[in-house]
């Protein structure tokens, strides 16, 4: 393995890992904020129980999201210093703004929310978790704007004197057309993740518990409803996303479909096996015209194929920019990876939506299901969106290869020239080990608190009497 391989594995592992926690943070912060607001509005204690229960699970998840985010802020400089020098003028700005606008908001108001029970007035306490949620949305916006710029660089000029990309239009970077479809797609996926988590956890309690079943049934329906609505949104935002992708990164669309040669109309492949060098297909099962519709909006549209695009790119960017990566020649991503990750993203998301529909159906009109198979549905439902999210990112990042910044800088040119293989390998191994241990601990805690179920409430919880600052009684909440 050379430095580029190691740096890419580290980026892939740390980023996919980080993004297991991020969507759940976004989705659950909104749900918990909604539950607390419902408690304040209705004074129905069930809402407070749910707030505390899912709030705790949210915090277990949030802790790992925060600490793994620190690595993301610094590994561009550590492993990708050439990239950082080249794009810092454009790419650094959204990162800095994200820190100033979002990270401060999230961390400060989450601290207030965790420790602020009975210290803040009820409405202010609920406002804190809403502000945390707004912080997560802002954070997502700026970091996705930065990523969208890598997919489709806009608002910059290449300066041959300094040898770098320089920003001349901040708004173009903020409202990049890729960003405008990526942001909704990602946020809706996060709500789907949160809804599926709530539905899965709650239906597990409905099936296995004797107590509080009515409460869990309500939560399961709430979660499944969120997940189902989000699934519809995912399909629409994903569809627009695909059309924008076809326009700005046609090779990624061709690679997603293993479409070797330009077709008009093009069929959507359900199953394709190609030759390993990505030159042609061996077996394929297709629906005629569907890909044309997905890519262009017309069943008769032309979709360009890998071989034609390769020739085009070679003319435009020169022969073989990224050297030895992928498919034997420069401009083609690893077809099996893009093809299958694209399908796994949609597949896992789709199964999640089906389970959500099943839960809504089985709990309709006061029904209390107890089918044992539902336990398996409950266990798999929270995991499905996590898998779909991960494969979505693997697809979109692997599909951009060999580019780090599309059309501007290849990945192999982006790594740090001064970093040794030993340093990078040590970093990869240590981070992977620590992340692995933390994953085991996190899952253990999650399961423990899921099993424990909703808490019993005390009078202090429900009345929210605020003690004076010099009070001698034990704190309402302490670590």
């Amino acid at each position, binding site marked *: 393995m050379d430095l580029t391989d190691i740096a890419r594995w580290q980026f892939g592992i740390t980023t996919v890992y980080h993004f297991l926690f991020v969507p759940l943070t976004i989705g659950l912060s909104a749900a918990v904020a909604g539950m607390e607001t419902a408690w304040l509005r209705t004074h129905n204690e069930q809402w407070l129980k749910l707030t505390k229960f899912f709030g705790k699970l949210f915090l277990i998840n949030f802790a*790992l999201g925060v600490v793994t985010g620190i*690595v993301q802020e610094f590994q561009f400089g550590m492993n990708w210093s050439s990239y950082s020098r080249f794009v810092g003028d454009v790419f650094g700005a959204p990162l800095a703004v994200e820190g100033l606008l979002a990270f401060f908001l999230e961390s400060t108001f989450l601290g207030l929310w965790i420790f602020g029970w009975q210290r803040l007035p009820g409405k202010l306490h609920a406002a804190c978790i809403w502000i945390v949620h707004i912080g997560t949305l802002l954070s997502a916006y700026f970091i996705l704007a930065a990523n969208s710029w890598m997919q489709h660089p806009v608002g910059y000029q290449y300066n041959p004197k300094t040898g770098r990309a320089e920003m001349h239009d901040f708004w173009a970077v903020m409202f990049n057309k890729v960003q405008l479809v990526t942001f909704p797609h990602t946020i809706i996926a996060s709500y789907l993740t949160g809804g599926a988590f709530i539905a899965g956890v709650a239906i597990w309690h409905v099936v296995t518990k004797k107590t509080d079943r009515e409460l869990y049934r309500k939560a399961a329906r709430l979660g499944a409803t969120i997940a189902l609505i989000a699934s519809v949104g995912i399909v629409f935002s994903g569809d627009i996303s695909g059309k924008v992708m076809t326009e700005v990164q046609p090779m990624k669309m061709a690679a997603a479909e293993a479409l070797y040669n330009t077709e008009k109309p093009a069929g959507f492949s359900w199953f394709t096996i190609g030759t390993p060098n990505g030159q042609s297909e061996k077996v394929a099962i297709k629906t005629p015209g569907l890909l044309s519709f997905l890519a262009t909006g017309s069943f008769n549209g032309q979709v360009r194929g890998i071989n034609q695009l390769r020739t085009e790119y070679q003319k435009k960017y020169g022969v073989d920019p990224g050297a030895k990566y992928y498919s034997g020649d420069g401009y083609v991503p690893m077809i099996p990876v893009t093809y299958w990750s694209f399908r796994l993203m949609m597949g896992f998301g789709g199964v999640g939506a089906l389970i959500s529909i099943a839960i809504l159906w089985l709990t309709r009109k006061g029904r209390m299901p107890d089918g044992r198979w539902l336990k398996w549905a409950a266990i798999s439902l929270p995991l499905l969106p996590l898998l779909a999210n991960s494969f979505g990112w693997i697809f979109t990042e692997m599909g951009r290869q060999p580019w780090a910044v599309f059309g501007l800088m290849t990945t192999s040119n982006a790594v740090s020239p001064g970093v040794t293989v030993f340093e990078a390998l040590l970093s990869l191994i*240590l981070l992977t080990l620590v992340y692995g241990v933390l994953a085991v601990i996190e899952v253990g805690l999650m399961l423990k608190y899921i099993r424990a179920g909703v808490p019993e409430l005390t009078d202090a919880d429900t009345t929210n009497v605020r003690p004076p600052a010099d009070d001698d009684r034990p704190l309402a909440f302490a670590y």
Partner: protein
Amino acid sequence: MELTTVWFTLIAVLWIGYFTLEGFDFGVGILMPFLAKDERERRVMINTIGPVWDGNEVWLLVAGGATFAAFPQWYATLFSGFYLPLLLILLALIVRGVAFEYRAKHDSVVWRRGWDLAIFWGSLLPALLWGVAFGNIVRGVPIDAHMQYTGGFWHLLNPYSLLGGLTTLSLFLAHGAMFLALKTDGPIRLRARALALRLGLVAAVITVAFLLWTQVKHGSVSSALLFVAAAVALVGGLLAILREREGWGFAGTFVAIGLGVAGLFTALFPNVMPTTLSNGISLTTTNASATHYTLTVMTIVAIIFTPLVLVYQAWTYWVFRQRIAVHHIPDATPEYEGVTR
């Protein structure tokens, strides 16, 4: 003022914010095995920083992001150059952050001991290594004509920078003890007060030595003024804690750390990373910076949002102003009440 100077100043401010704030929570983390006599006192210590440590750490993330945006060359050279120390800091911050959040979520002695170790080492390593890193930045490191650091790992361990590491470590320890004296009540408060004085004396000696060395080798008139002011603040803090004035004591270490960092940045200016190679390039606020346009955009964002951040962070400290004593710590925390399976 040039925008590059504005951003150099703003980045200095972000580091000042980071060291003055996370400095004391590092101190609390390192002191936990020594100052707390039992589990309840350990929990008192953790709860003094529980609501704020994460917000304190964000100052580091924003300093990193702002350096990336305003001085991409500085960001790239620094983080790819100081690779291994930075990796250690990242690992330390990861386990430390998780430790605060997870320690109370399972009722077992082994579990808590494990996280206590994570809190101790996770606080000690960054407290030491940030000083080593800043010592090296001010001292200068081998940077070649392509702005690449060429020194390797061992080059970073030189006497001056190691003294820098001891300076931040001892200052953060004293700062943490001051904070605990201010934020706790009962026997632990008295012990923290006594410890703050002793640690403060040690820190004063080390700090004065480091600042003198810095001033002689790299200083200017304005850095001298800031260093003297920092020393005065530190001594003032010690006198205050001697007279049992905890608020002023904490203010003393707070201001001393802030002015000390300001002095280091002043000594550095207009370089951001000087080179020690005759044929190398020193990174300066000019040759390492982003374009005027990017700096302008960032300046507008910073002017609007930085005051807002300061207001709500200050408000958090006001909300959690109550001193914490052992009798404030609930028996079974709600964290693991009823969760024993």
